[in-house]
């Protein structure tokens, strides 16, 4: 396999081999992110598709050292865009048939990461977005408010409720 730099250069030149290699290299990881931001597997797959297309289109704009983080940001932005677009469609589905590759058992919880993902997936869409953006991506409430077109206080309230739901679910596992 070629080095990441060569693959990026190839992608910038619109080379099919480079795009295939990049997809091969990052698709599993990005699909994991997509699952976190989607309500079902089909949405996640669409998000993966759109995300990679966006990455290939905008790879010339990539300048930072951390390609992984840049890609993640692209995918999160696409997820946000789709969320705003599909706000009206609240189709809820439990992602419980997805098997993660990196299914780690957390020491203090004894919970698999797939199960954690399933818990997040059960959250209402807006709670899930707020929680992901705050706890996983590290955005502030003000930024989240702007991204999701809600007020700061709504963001705080959503986060609080999301935590509460997740805590309850974690407690069930502990029991």
């Amino acid at each position: 396999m070629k080095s990441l730099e060569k693959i990026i250069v190839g992608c910038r030149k619109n080379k099919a081999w480079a795009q295939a290699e990049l997809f091969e290299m990052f698709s599993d990881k990005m699909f994991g992110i997509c699952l976190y931001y989607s309500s079902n597997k089909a949405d996640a797959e669409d998000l993966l598709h759109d995300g990679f297309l966006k990455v290939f289109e905008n790879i010339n704009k990539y300048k930072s050292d951390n390609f992984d983080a840049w890609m993640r940001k692209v995918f999160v932005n696409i997820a946000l865009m789709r969320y705003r677009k599909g706000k009206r469609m609240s189709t809820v589905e439990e992602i419980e048939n997805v098997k993660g590759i990196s299914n780690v058992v957390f020491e203090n919880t004894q919970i698999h990461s797939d199960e954690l993902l399933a818990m997040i997936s059960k959250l209402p869409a807006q709670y899930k977005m707020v929680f992901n953006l705050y706890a996983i991506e590290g955005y502030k409430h003000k930024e989240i408010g702007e991204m999701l077109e809600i007020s700061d206080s709504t963001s705080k309230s959503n986060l609080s409720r999301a935590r509460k739901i997740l805590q309850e679910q974690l407690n069930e596992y502990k029991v």
Partner: protein
Amino acid sequence: MSEQHNIDQIFSAAAKGYSASTPSGAWGRMDAALKAKRQKRRLTIWFVSVGLGILASILGLWFYNSANNHSTIETESNIIESNTTNFESKADNANNEITQQNNNNEQATANSLNKEDLQNSNNENIEEEIAKESIIDTQNSDTELDNSNKKNATKTINKEVAVIGLSSTNNNRLPAKHSEGNNADNNQTEEIAVIEEVNLNNSYEVIKEDSAENNNREIVATDVIIESDSISESNQTENTVAEITIIDTLGTEEAINPSDNVSETETEEIQKLADPVYIPNVDKFKMGLFFNIYAGVSLSNGASSEPYYTNFKMASSPQEYGASSPNIGFNLGFRISKKFSVSLGMKRYNHVIKGDFSMPDKRVTHINIDKFGYTSLGYYSVDNINNAMQTKNFNTVEYLREFTQTKVKLRFVEIPLNIGYNMYWRNWAMTAHGGFNATFVLSNEVQVGDDSDYYLYGEMQNLRDNIFGVSFGMDISYYTKSRFSFGLKTDFIYYLNDINTSDDFKFHPYSFILSPQIGFRF
């Protein structure tokens, strides 16, 4: 608080290290999308390259012609200057002859330019004295003159418009040198000859030199228009003679090419110059190539009726509407005559039909991906619904019931072959055209969504690769003095074939196209 922080940490750590195996077929789908993008990019590059190439060719031809005209003008100026001298001396000689004859109280005889008319003029009043002025102004001519090619030189002169006026002695336009010379010899006689070529870039104009007493004019020469308002006003006798004098200036031409005679065609050309609505710019291109490029908007039709076979239990578009889309194209044509032209071109445009989306009222138990729904154009498939249907606990039908509209976009490349009938009025031309079109369907896309966006994508099934149609329309163009013209093009295209091969669908598309256009005449 620490508990909350702990929850955040647990999920953050789990999410950041999380990866899941990509579904099979994900890369295939991605690859297909990337290929389509590459193809689109290639097509765009091709269209832009062709466009730039055509533009460069036009500009190149234009600059080439401009450079040629410039060098021709310089050459012509030299030749015409020398001819002017010849003409002046001829006119002087003629005048001297007339004056001498008048002084001898003899009937005026024809001079070397025009014997008969001057005879008539002199018959009226023997005592009349004629003042003479020759102003020769040559500005431009558009035919290349070659000193070594006298035929060409003659043609150049043929395109000049010359006005020779015979006026009274009071005329202040006499060139000092010329008038002094004549006055010295003959105080009462002046002859004014004006040759004025007003042709710039093939535009002709007749300069009139009418006196108050006489408005008579006559086009007199075959290749040079001579207007003579001859007023011989005698200061002594107050006897005014005004007469149209026809002066044959063939001698001037003969100074350049004595052996070259004026053809009937050239005579006709000269006669056309007198026509007030005659447009030399247009008429000059009796036969020749022209090129038009246009870009505008095409409006297409929606469904006119329900499909022939209506017993479908699938999503439908009960009401359809035409929609607009941009178009771009060019025509390369040949003007067979002043009135008729033929052209062949290429046009790229989309046929867009919007429609309402409707799921069957009855309970839907399954959905056919390949024949998901139908519009008047035929069945269509959807691609991305497949993933949604695989999802557990996902109510696909409820999801679909939220959609309200469909959009079908057919991408066409069309080869129009047209015959045009041209009508002119001053610098305007109106072309009625009609012909046949061979239209190739490049691709088609169906989108399903709600009022704000489209979410499902697919394509029409069983469409023909190419259809044939008839078209007619009307173009209006303004012809500039250069080779360019600007105008508005209209086209109505009606397709003769059903666009779908299935007997269930009988849809004939038609389009109305409105485009501003720029033309260039070679």
